[in-house]
């Protein structure tokens, strides 16, 4: 049974999360402040942290920084919309994902499952990916859509590979640019926009209603693969 640490100062939100997560067979512990949260992660074996960014005693961002100094525990950030800069900062500092408040419970549980799964996965890359008619063979650098070969440029392929390797997890523009183009291109978001558009036109059935590559407004992209 995975143990989840909930860090939120609002009792209603803690109650909601505790009830739902317990019902889905997670072990739940709670903290009401950043200081307590850091201590909890140090004291207990914790599998995942659900961290509210707006804590009374200290900035959620600095809590991430302090936990990341010595722990790799997955962190999912809870944040209100319109705080995109904070979300990006949190993700760039090592948070694994974020969920907008107010959130749908199904969405939150999906993020929790994805983060836990990624943590348990070994570091070896999968050799292939199959979902909804999209097949990627990483060893042969081969991409197929509904049985037909698709020709991707090297950068398009790299982009798709990075997205699939972090499937279900949001990647910030900066993270994607760094992985695919390199550190000196992290501000050139228009490269990314154009390549995402091209990639969507090649792999999506309807590029304006994408199925695989989802835009996270103001933050980045998320590759969604139906769990199979």
């Amino acid at each position, binding site marked *: 049974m995975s143990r989840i640490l909930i860090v939120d100062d609002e009792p209603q939100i803690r109650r909601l999360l505790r009830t739902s997560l317990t019902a889905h067979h997670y072990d739940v512990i709670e903290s009401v402040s950043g200081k307590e949260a850091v201590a909890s992660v140090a004291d207990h074996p914790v599998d995942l942290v659900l961290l509210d960014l707006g804590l009374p005693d200290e900035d959620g961002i600095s809590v991430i920084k302090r936990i990341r100094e010595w722990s790799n525990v997955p962190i999912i950030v809870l944040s209100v919309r*319109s705080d995109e800069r904070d979300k990006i900062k949190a993700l760039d500092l090592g948070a694994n994902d974020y969920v907008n408040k107010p959130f749908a419970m199904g969405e939150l549980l999906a993020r929790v499952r994805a983060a836990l799964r990624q943590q348990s996965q070994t570091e070896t890359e999968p050799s292939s990916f199959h979902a909804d008619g999209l097949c990627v063979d990483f060893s042969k650098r081969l991409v197929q859509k509904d049985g037909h070969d698709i020709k991707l440029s090297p950068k398009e392929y790299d982009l798709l590979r990075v997205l699939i390797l972090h499937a279900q997890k949001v990647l910030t523009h900066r993270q994607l640019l760094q992985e695919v183009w390199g550190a000196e291109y992290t501000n050139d*978001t228009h490269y990314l926009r154009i390549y995402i558009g091209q990639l969507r036109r090649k792999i999506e059935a309807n590029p304006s209603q994408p199925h695989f590559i989802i835009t996270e407004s103001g933050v980045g992209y998320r590759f969604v693969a139906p769990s199979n």
Partner: protein
Amino acid sequence: MKLPATMLFVCLIFWTAMRYGLTVSMIVSVCCAMVFSFFFAPPIYSFAVTHADDWWSIGIFLAAAILTSRLATRMKAQAAKAEKHRAGTEFLFRFSTLIVNVVGLSELLKVGTEQIAESLMAEVFLLLPDSAGKLNLAASSPGITVITEAESASATWVYHQNIPAGHGTEILSEAEWLYLPLTTPRKNVGVLGLRFHGGLGTQGRLLEALKDQMALAIERMQLAKSLEESRLMKQTERLETTLLSSISHDFRTPLAAIIGSATGLLSDKYDAAARRELLMTIYEEAQRLNRFVGNLLDMTRLESGTLELNRDWFELEDLIGTTISRLSERLSKHRFMVNLPPDLPLVYGDFVLLEHVLINLFDNAVKYSPEGSAIWVSGRRQNHDLIIEVRDEGIGVPQEERPLIFEKFRRSRSGNRQIAGIGLGLSICKGILEAHEGKIEADSPDGGVGILFRLTIPVKLPVKEMIPA
């Protein structure tokens, strides 16, 4: 020869007196007398005068010369005085026209002090009381940026006692400055300080008149300002009342639905289908509340000027696709038609804010058009602009009301009042588009049914066009 010569001398003396004043004309008179005795009174070419007649002549001539001189200088003085008076009156007239026509208190103070300083050949400062009654430097001649504590204390005394003091008066007469209270029949508006380069001279009445005019003009300006302030205050109050009443109405309705549904669910008396219905109500109404709060927040940020654009490059297709999938449940009962040419330029803007614009427009389209009807979204490039059009087949907005729907709390009067909304959405759209140097307009669609919203955003080009492939 003697007579014409003396006549000539008198003329000369008159002219000298007019021109150079009494002293010079006296000297000229004596010179003339000596010339007369030298050239005209025998023995000629000698200052000696032998005839008694000639003595008489010289005596009478000198007396006449003195009289003429004095008469002439007095005339001159009177003419000068008249001229000065005329100039003063004319200046006063110009001054009053000038200060009546200036716009704003600060301009009035600036122009007023400049004019007073120039006409009286003096340095000038002007002190006005603040809301607590403390005098502050409001305007001054160039070079005077601060006044000393002693000067300020004297001015404050003058302001409260309403008596002139300082240079040239009986009180504080050793001071450099002259302090005059600026009074109107209603109240004391401030203090005028003057330091003359020469002296006040005969300009006392002009100063008096200028000071009174200035005081009246300042009072008039202050009255106008306080009138405007109270008008604005009333407007703000009205706005707050509208906001409060619409918020309480538009928040209560979904809250009532949520509380009602939740208490129903707690009572355990419903079958599975009914429970699901109640849960859907809670969910939908809470979503609606969430949208209201989002709009209110946007509005506050737009109004307070704290809205910071987080600009980035993106494809219009991405923006529209993301908005549609975010609203997928709400849009499910309408047919959505997206028409985008493949070669559209990238948009340079705030993705999240422009998404709010589209969410508001789509939400309106769904609210005001029947289920099953179509909603069109299209994009195109027109010269240096990107045009986005959102069109529905709903009830539309009459032509004359269209410019008004972008104002706060304004909802179409012909619209259905039963449809929830506080009339913030479109004014937020307008604010966001304007922050992007763009605009939003409402228009009639070609078919005539419904309404078309046209967004215009200027196209920018990425700094680096070359993309490493």
